[in-house]
C-alpha cells in the first residue's frame, strides 16, 4: 500500500474522535506509519468537524487537502456534501443518512438541500449510505453510530474483520464491548 487518506466528518459531539482513533490503531496494527489530526475546542459545540487519518510507509503532513482523500466517512448527510471537494477522483463516500439541521436552516435563513446524497452519486462518486442510528440502536446504543460507520468503512477498505474487532476491544470501555462488537458487525455485513 502506498498511502491512504481518510477524512472523517460530522457534527461536533457525534463521536468522530473515537472513530479516528480506532482507524489509526487499525493502521498501526498493520505496520504502517500513521498521523491523525483531530478537532478539539470550539467546533466541538455542534459545529462542522473534520478529522484526518493518514497512513502509509512514512507520513509527513497530518492534514488532507482538496482532492486528496481516498475515503470520506461522514456522520451526517449535509457534511458529506460540504467536504466532498476533499475526495479524490475515484474516492468513496461512506455516509450516514441522518440529517441534522444547522442553525441557519433552523432559523429559516437557508435550505437543507434535498436528496443530498443522490446529488453526490450523480457526480459519479461511489456512495455507500446507511441509517447508522437505527443500526446502532439495534446493536444496543444510539452512541454506537461511529462503530457502525467504521464497520462499513472497514468492509470497503478490505480490512480483516477480526483485526478490527481486536482494535475495538482494546480501545472502548469494557462494558460497551458487546454493543460495539454488534455495531461493527452490522456495519461490516451491510
Amino acid at each position, binding site marked *: 500500500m502506498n498511502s491512504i487518506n481518510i477524512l472523517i466528518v460530522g457534527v461536533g459531539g457525534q463521536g468522530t474522535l473515537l472513530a479516528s482513533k480506532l482507524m489509526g490503531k487499525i493502521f498501526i496494527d498493520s505496520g504502517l506509519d500513521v498521523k491523525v489530526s483531530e478537532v478539539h475546542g470550539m467546533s466541538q459545540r455542534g*459545529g462542522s468537524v473534520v478529522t484526518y487519518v493518514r497512513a502509509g510507509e512514512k507520513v509527513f503532513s497530518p492534514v488532507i487537502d482538496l482532492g486528496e482523500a481516498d475515503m470520506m466517512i461522514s456522520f451526517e448527510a449535509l457534511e458529506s456534501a460540504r467536504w466532498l471537494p476533499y475526495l479524490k477522483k475515484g474516492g468513496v463516500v461512506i455516509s450516514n443518512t441522518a440529517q*441534522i439541521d444547522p442553525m441557519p436552516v433552523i432559523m429559516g435563513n437557508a435550505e437543507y438541500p434535498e436528496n443530498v446524497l443522490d446529488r453526490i452519486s450523480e457526480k459519479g462518486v461511489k456512495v455507500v449510505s446507511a441509517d447508522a442510528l437505527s443500526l446502532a440502536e439495534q446493536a444496543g446504543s444510539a452512541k454506537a453510530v461511529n462503530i457502525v460507520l467504521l464497520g462499513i468503512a472497514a468492509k470497503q477498505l478490505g480490512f480483516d474483520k477480526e483485526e478490527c474487532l481486536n482494535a475495538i476491544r482494546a480501545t472502548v470501555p469494557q462494558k460497551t464491548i458487546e454493543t460495539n462488537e454488534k455495531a461493527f458487525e452490522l456495519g461490516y455485513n451491510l
Partner: protein
Amino acid sequence: MEKKLLLGNEAVAQGLYEAGVSVVSSYPGTPSTEITEAVSKYNEIYSEWAPNEKVAMEVAIGASFGGARSFCAMKHVGLNVAADPLYTASYIGVNGGMVCAVADDPGMHSSQNEQDSRRHAIAAKVPMLEPSDSQEALDFTKIAYDLSERYDTPFLLRLSTRISHSRSLVTVSERKEVALKEYKRDVMKNVMMPAMARKAHAKVEDRMDDLTVWADTEAFDLGVNKEELFSDEIGIIAAGSTYVYAREALGEKASYLKLGIVNPLPRKAICDFAKKVKTLYVIEELDDIIETHCIKLGVKVIGREVFSPLGEYNQSIIEKAIFGTKKESVAVECDIPARPPVLCPGCPHRGLYYALKSLNLYVSGDIGCYTLGAQAPLSMMDTCVCMGASVSALHGYNTARGSEAAKKSIAVIGDSTFIHSGITGLIDIVYNKGISTVIVLDNSITGMTGHQNNPLNGKTIKGDPTTAVDLEALAKAIGITNVRVVDPFDIKTTKAVVEEELAKEEPSLVISRRPCALLKNVKHNKALYVEESKCVGCKACLKVGCPAISQKKLENSKTRAVIDANQCLGCGVCVETCRLGAIKTPENN
C-alpha cells in the same frame, strides 16, 4: 521500546514525565489544554490548574527557584497574560530547569486572534524550540530542560493546533528522576532591581549569542535542526508544521533546512544552506520572522511574496505557490448552509440569554461557551475582547455614556473567566463608584476547553475535593451589597432580578447558577415534544436557538415545530416561548 500513537500535547506530557519534571501549573486554553490533563495522570508529577496563566507561570518560576524542574502550558493569548513574569524570568534564569509550552492557533480554530508567539520569545529574549510531530514534541521537551539548566534560562516550546492536536507514533521511555537542586539565597541573581537587572540584561544578551552558536552546531548533532539535501534547484527553510507540509508536498524535489530552534535562529547554517540551492523559499505560518532574519543575513529568499500571513497552510498551498499546480476535486452544485458551533441543547446560558433578550441591553461579552450567544438568533453580545474584559470594558462604556446607559447594560462572564481576570475589573467598578451590573454565568466548570475544574467548583485537577471560592462572600468582601443568585431556567425570575439590579444606582453582581448540561452528574428531564394539533408554525420557539428544535414542512406546505428526542434534554426553556402551550413534557417525568 514501546510505541504509542500520541497527540502532540500528550507527547509533551510524556516528555515532562521522562525529563523528571515535578511541578506543573497551567490554565486551560485550546489548543494547549491536553498537556496538563495528561500530566495529571502521572502520580510522580504535582499538577494544578491555576486561576490564570500569570499565576501558572509564577508557580513554575517559584518551583524553579526551589530547585525543581517545572513547567506551565498556555495558549498563545495566555502568554500575553503571563508575559510580565516571563520577561523578567528571562533576566533571572533558573535553578531547576523551566519550560513553558505555548500553543498558537493559525487559522483560529478556537481563538480570538492569530498572534505569533515567536514574537514573545524574541521580545523576552527567551529561547524557543518548535517540534513538527509528536516524537519531536517529546524529544524537544526533554532537550529544553537540559538546555534550560545549561544556559540558565527558561525555555519556550512553541506548538500549534496541528502539532498539539495531531496523533503520531512516539517511542516512550522510562522516567529519569532529577533530584531537587539545592536552594541558596542569591539576591544578585534572583531579585530584579535596577542594579541587578542591568547586569542581568548583559548576561541575557551573551546567553542568546551562545545559543545562536548552539543553533549552528550542536542543534544539528542532536537533530533539532536538520539539513536534508535532495535538490540543488529548490531549497526550503521551514519549522514545525510548515516543514511537514512542505516535505509532503515537495518530497525529494527540494532540499530542506528544518529548524527546531526558532529563537535564536542559526546564522552560519542558513548562509551555508543558501549556497547549496538556486532558489530558496522560507515557509512559515503567520509572521515573517525567519524571512526577516535571512534578509538581515543578506540571504536572498522568497517568502511573503508567495505565502500569506493569514491562517493555516497545508501541502496544496505550498505546491501551488511553488509549482503552480492544483488538484482536481468534485463538488455538488447547490448551496451548502454553514454549520457554525452553537450552544448545546440544555445549556444554561440559553436560559439566561433568552430571559434578557427582550430587555434590549448592551452586552459586554467575554471568552467562553457563552460567546456563542453572540450569534443569531440569541444575538446577545455587543463586544468580546479577551479574558476578563467584559467587566472592565463595561465600566469604561458606562463611564463614557453615563448612568442611563448603565441601566441598560450588562457584562456576561463565566465562572472560570471571572476568577481568571474578572475580579479585578469588578473591584475597579466598586472602588470608582460605578453602578454597572455584572452577571457571572456559573456553570461550575471551565466549559469550552473541555471541562476542567476551577477554583469555584471545589475540585482539584485530579477531581479531589478542595476549598471552593465563595463567590457571594467574595463579592460582598470587595464591597458589592447587591449580590443575587438566579436559576437561568427560571426565565421569569431571572428577568425580574436583572431588571431590579439594573434600576439601582449601585453596582450589582448577579450569579446565574446552573451546571453545564454536559457534566456527567447532571440529571436531565425527558425529551419534550410538540403537540402537532396545537402548533401553528409561528416559529417563536426557534428564537431560543436550540439545535434540538427545527421546523418540518407538512404536505399542505405549512410548517410545524419538531423536537429531536435524541438531542432534547428537557430543559424547558422553549416551553416559555410557546403561547399556545404546544410544547409538552411527557407524563410521569
